[in-house]
């Protein structure tokens, strides 16, 4: 009797453990993909190409970033949402991405894919989702399948138009322009934020916290 009861307990424990582990795996797969949080963050913010926010915003942040860069991903995860909520939504700041492809071979298709989404004013959704799903630098994870998967998760992105734009001269021209701008700025690393306003220009390098960005915005906002 005791033997049977304890064997049953053992069986229940094993089955429960497998069920709990399966639940954790399912939650890991279905939550945190980022689509909902990206939609919530960017849904009501105007976009045009790689510009996020109102064109009339007095302060402009030029964000030099490479989609393969882990620090850029950290900035996108930890600081960028707060920047959007505090300053971009209210029309005080607009952010312009200067998309670079400097970290290696995988950066080029990644940048092209994001800029192609920008042709439909969906750059920021695409790049945010990319950062949330970023793999290890130059490990070969940036496959066509990976890029297409991100595109499919990007709300309101026409896939045919996106595919066509990836090899276009317009996208190459944007990439070249961003590289040239980075050279002119004397870029030291990514992400680099060039914060520009009536009161002047300042630069931040790295995945800086929102307080640092706020301080620079305050410095440049008034003439």
């Amino acid at each position, binding site marked *: 009797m005791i033997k049977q009861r304890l064997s049953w307990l053992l069986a229940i424990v094993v089955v429960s453990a497998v069920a709990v582990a399966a639940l954790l795996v399912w939650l890991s797969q279905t939550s945190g993909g980022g689509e909902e949080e990206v939609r919530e963050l960017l849904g009501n913010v105007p976009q045009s190409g790689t510009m996020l926010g109102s064109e009339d915003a007095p302060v402009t942040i030029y964000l030099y970033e490479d989609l393969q860069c882990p620090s850029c991903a950290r900035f996108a995860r930890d600081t960028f949402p707060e920047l959007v909520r505090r300053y971009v939504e209210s029309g005080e700041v607009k952010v312009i991405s200067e998309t670079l492809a400097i970290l290696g071979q995988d950066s080029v298709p990644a940048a092209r894919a994001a800029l192609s989404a920008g042709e439909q004013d969906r750059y920021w959704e695409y790049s945010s989702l990319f950062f949330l799903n970023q793999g290890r630098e130059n490990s070969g*994870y940036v496959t066509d399948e990976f890029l297409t998967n991100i595109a499919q998760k990007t709300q309101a992105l026409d896939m045919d138009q996106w595919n066509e734009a990836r090899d276009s001269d317009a996208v190459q021209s944007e990439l070249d322009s961003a590289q040239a701008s980075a050279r002119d700025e004397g870029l030291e690393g990514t992400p680099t934020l060039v914060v520009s306003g009536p009161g002047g220009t300042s630069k931040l390098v790295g995945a800086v916290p929102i307080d640092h960005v706020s301080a620079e915005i305050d410095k440049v906002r008034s003439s």
Partner: protein
Amino acid sequence: MSAYLTWVHLLGLTPVCLSGNGGCETVQSSRYAEILGVPVAALGMGGYAGLLLSVVLRDEGGALLGLFVTLVSVIFSAYLTYLELFVIYAICQWCVTSAALMTAAFILCVVRISQLRKKRYW
């Protein structure tokens, strides 16, 4: 270890990574580092707390609790290792160490239950 990774995750810091190739940061920054907003490292802390409790509790209760916690951890760690190798393409040494520790703990829990079965009337 889990406490350190939880702290790093919550403060948005870069974890120390022995290999220096940024694998730890890539894994800890990935979408798989959280479940419903809870850092996976925090779940790990809960697992280790459960394991500690199982050591304190005597007889079948402690043995079964230990088996439950380590079995969940081993299965979930196997899934996380799969993600590192085939999805994220980056290895976090902290995660690998934790997986190895939990696997060892699982083996010891199985041994503990076997010994209890021999002692009692299983």
